């Protein structure tokens, strides 16, 4: 995996930091204390991280944690006080003004919390803006803008003014404007925070779908830990200008690095984060179609279970038999095929646990997790669905 974007000891202090401020930062004096004693506000404190190509890296923190300052340091809308920012291995702080402009024109684009649309321009001209700044000829500009608008589902809206669109649509324009430039890196500063919950969820899903196709490197800011865990391949939790923990959602859920993060994680609705594949397990007993009923009964008795899944070649799921059926079938000289049941539920590996709740409630059998070829990947029992909530 190649590193696309990297920061090294990135620090931003607002106001004129004296030597005293640097000393206090080194000693790890708290942000509030530094503000009280020196009048300088510490936005970002010694932050280092790497973002891989094609990865969604989420920076999560509450307001005042420095996350917006941090993302602005990545394209130098805010000049860091100290530290380095590498894009494709080049320290962009050493760039001349002209090189910085070219970087912003070609490699990075940003999406803003309140959309940052140019209200005096049509949707089309908004989306074309980045291309116009680059001096791309009109025809090509129009074509690319159209493609970008269609990608976000806004084909046909190009002649409207941004003010005539709803919030969700405005942010689609914001996204299209960023995508039109075909940047490698997308910086998204709380892009969905000002949208209402239903639209936010749609936009999240759409962004994930787009990302599947486009494979951009995305830095995504949010204050919502559910959103962070949903969107992020990796998540960095920020507090008082410092990154407290970086890891995959599962890692952070499993091992919160501090009390602060533990508190946060408690708020997480795990059922929206965990997917079927996260809570499924390999069944202790599985029955091959060829094995006989005696074998089936023995397997169930051995593991103390009352039903077992039957698979064919290539782990293809055929059905399920219960111990009661098996015992009576043995007396009647029937075969496994005769008593196969199909009134159990199956689900895909990427289904979120919250969608499994109704299934778990209604079934007496485990839920089978299968891939698109009906191959059995694992099973989920009711208890694991419930415990996903309790944590």
């Amino acid at each position, binding site marked *: 995996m190649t590193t696309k974007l990297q920061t090294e000891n990135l620090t931003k202090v607002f106001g004129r930091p004296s030597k005293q401020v640097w000393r206090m930062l080194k000693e790890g004096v708290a942000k509030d204390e530094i503000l009280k004693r020196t009048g300088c506000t510490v936005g970002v404190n010694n932050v280092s991280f790497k973002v891989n190509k094609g990865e969604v890296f989420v920076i999560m923190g509450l307001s005042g944690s420095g996350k917006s300052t941090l993302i602005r340091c990545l394209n130098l809308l805010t000049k860091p006080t100290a530290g380095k920012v590498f894009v494709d291995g080049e320290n962009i702080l050493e760039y001349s003004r002209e090189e910085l402009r070219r970087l912003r*024109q*070609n490699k990075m684009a940003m999406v803003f919390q309140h959309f940052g649309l140019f209200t005096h321009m049509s949707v089309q001209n908004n989306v074309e803006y980045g291309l116009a700044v680059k001096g791309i000829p009109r025809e090509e500009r129009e074509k690319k803008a159209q493609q970008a608008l269609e990608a976000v589902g806004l084909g046909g809206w190009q002649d409207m003014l941004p003010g005539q669109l709803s919030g969700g649509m405005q942010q689609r324009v914001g996204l299209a404007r960023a995508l039109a430039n075909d940047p490698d890196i997308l910086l998204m500063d709380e892009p969905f925070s000002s949208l209402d919950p239903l639209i936010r969820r749609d936009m999240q899903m759409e962004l994930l779908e787009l990302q599947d196709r486009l494979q951009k490197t995305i830095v995504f800011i949010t204050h919502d830990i559910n959103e962070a865990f949903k969107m992020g391949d990796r998540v960095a939790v920020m507090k008082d200008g410092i990154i407290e923990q970086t890891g995959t959602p599962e890692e952070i859920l499993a091992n919160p690095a501090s009390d602060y993060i533990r508190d946060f994680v408690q708020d997480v609705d795990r059922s929206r984060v965990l997917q079927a594949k996260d809570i499924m397990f390999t069944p202790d007993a599985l029955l091959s179609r060829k094995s006989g009923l005696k074998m089936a009964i023995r397997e169930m008795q051995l593991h103390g279970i009352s039903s077992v899944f039957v698979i064919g070649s290539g782990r293809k799921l055929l059905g399920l038999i219960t111990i009661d059926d098996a015992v009576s079938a043995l007396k009647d000289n029937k075969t496994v095929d005769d008593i196969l049941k199909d009134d159990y539920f199956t689900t895909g590996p990427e289904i979120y646990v919250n969608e499994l709740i109704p299934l778990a409630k209604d079934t007496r059998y485990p839920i089978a997790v299968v891939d698109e070829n009906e191959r059995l990947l694992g099973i989920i029992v009711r208890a694991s669905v419930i415990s996903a909530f309790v944590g």
Partner: protein
Amino acid sequence: MFPEQITLELGKYVNDFIYWLNNNYGMVFDVICNGVRWLLLNIEWMLLLMPWWFLIALVFILGWRLKSLLSGVVFAVMLFIIGAFGLWEPTMSTLAIVLTAVFFSLLIGIPLGIYMSSRDSVALVLKPILDAMQTLPSFVYLIPAVILFNMGKVPGVFATMIYALPPIIRLTNLGLRRVSQEMVEAAQSFGSSSWQLLFRIKLPQALPTIMTGVNQTTMMALAMVVIAAMIGAGGIGHVVVTSINRIDIAGGTESGLAVVFLAIIIDRLTQGLGDRFNANLS
């Protein structure tokens, strides 16, 4: 009583400075003077060249397009009444001075406003100067204007300009500073140069505020142009001043009303223009 030993003869220094300017850079002021006079006379010539009914029709159409049909009618009637007062020619002369003063005010004021919005230090210095320009009794400007540009219309234009400049500078500055920070950041994040940012984003966004400034500047110019008649700027102001001297109530009423009508027409038309831009933004 304030002790008599303590004296500050600031007036004397300013006096010396103005005379020094005049003696050493008289040529420069002559050149400026000629340029301004050329524009002024051409505008006046054009206004007088237009038949009276044409101008009334023009005001009607503008009023109708920019405001409403009724406004168009009212403005046309007002201009007609001015003509009926026998004040057509002085009104055109006044209008020429106002237009010239506004033209130069915008030419200087908008770039200065842009500069002021780009640097806090410039704003800090400029603000008290602008305050002084607007609060100093307007008659005071007439004196240096006369010394540098003699009597007549040109010093009238300059005295008018000093009074009319502050609103356009202030409102250009204000309009540019009020452009949403996120919009500016968005433009920057796409790699705009400062010029692209200014001309594609900031100025269009600030346009309604700047148009308010144009309106204010025009009104200020109109207010000052009457006073400027005291140094021979002519126009309706001249009729007002002679009416005062002769205690001529009839002449005073008519010329006074003519100024009011002219003010209303110019104010509403520039406002209508401003609303146009505003409507495009919301």
